[in-house]
């Protein structure tokens, strides 16, 4: 059903039930995302896509549009709130872009640039996190995990459908874990898929890094904003 919504004051005609984040992109309005993968079930974990819907703050990847909806994306207070969320991720983990092999193709880094983050307003926690390198082909650099849960939900054992990644404990104790036995059964293309799916440099392929030269990395070729906006299905 065709409906009207208001997007930053502009009236937009769209289809009822489409996800707000996609509707915005189709209409040229970029909303940063980190956990969301277009075409996959929403996770709603990172909240980076927060916008104001009818006066309330909501995650745009979790909201199906409905008629008469009033949406504010680039309103200063909301914009700053999204920026604060990204800053929190940088404060909570230990993100060292200069020596990270994901630099230039890291979604967190790219979104950091998009929201105009220079430095986090929150104190850095420098949480000690241990790395996990027990599986044959993958390395978990936990310093960089943002608990988006993409890997938890979207990477599963081919045979049994079991989850390979999981999050143990809660709150500040939470850690990303890998089932080594299942991980060692992953075919090479799934290993690659997991590393590419990770929006940060947490899941990385062993012995492979810095293979793309500077200037030819994913977000150096085309920004995350351009990539989000070009996949429109008008």
């Amino acid at each position, binding site marked *: 059903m065709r409906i009207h919504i208001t997007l930053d004051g502009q009236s937009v005609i769209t289809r009822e039930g489409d996800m707000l984040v996609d509707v915005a992109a189709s209409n040229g309005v970029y909303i940063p995302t980190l956990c969301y993968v277009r075409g996959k079930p929403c996770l709603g974990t990172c909240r980076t896509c927060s916008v104001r819907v009818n006066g309330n703050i909501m995650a745009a990847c979790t909201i199906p549009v409905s008629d008469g909806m009033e949406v504010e994306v680039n309103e200063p207070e909301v914009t700053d709130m999204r920026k604060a969320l990204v800053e929190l991720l940088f404060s909570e983990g230990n993100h060292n872009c200069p020596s990270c092999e994901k630099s230039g193709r890291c979604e967190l880094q790219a979104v950091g640039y998009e929201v105009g983050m*220079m*430095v*986090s*307003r929150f*104190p850095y926690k420098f949480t000690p996190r241990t790395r996990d390198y027990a599986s044959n082909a993958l390395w978990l650099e936990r310093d960089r995990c943002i608990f988006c849960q993409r890997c938890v939900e979207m990477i599963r054992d081919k045979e049994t459908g079991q989850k390979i990644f999981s999050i143990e404990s809660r709150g500040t104790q939470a850690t990303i874990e890998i089932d080594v036995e299942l991980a060692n059964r992953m075919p090479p293309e799934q290993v690659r898929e997991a590393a590419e799916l990770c929006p940060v440099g947490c899941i990385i392929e062993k012995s492979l890094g810095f293979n793309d030269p500077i200037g030819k990395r994913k977000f150096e070729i085309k920004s995350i904003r351009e990539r989000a906006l070009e996949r429109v299905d008008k």
Partner: protein
Amino acid sequence: MRHYQLHLEDADLISYKSKVLFVDATKAADVESFRIEKMASKMDFSFSSHAISIPAIMATCQQCFDRVPQVHLLTIRGYAWELEQGMTPAAQRNLMTATEYFRNESCASGM
């Protein structure tokens, strides 16, 4: 072009330009919001391994390349300088006022 510091090489960079605007934050209390001033070359011997002044850059440009562009300096008042802090709301306002002023000015003058 964005730098964290000026270099002697910037003399070479500006030698290809006709108009140059340097933008920097300032602590100067007599700058209420922002200030635009025309700069003149002067070899003020301000060089150290990590800093050099705009007049010295201009003088170097003149000496080495026999020409110097029209140079203006836009200084915007800031209030807090620690690394963890972002811009203060007052500095943010000053930046916006300066940007706005400059946008109008450049439209009017065709810069």
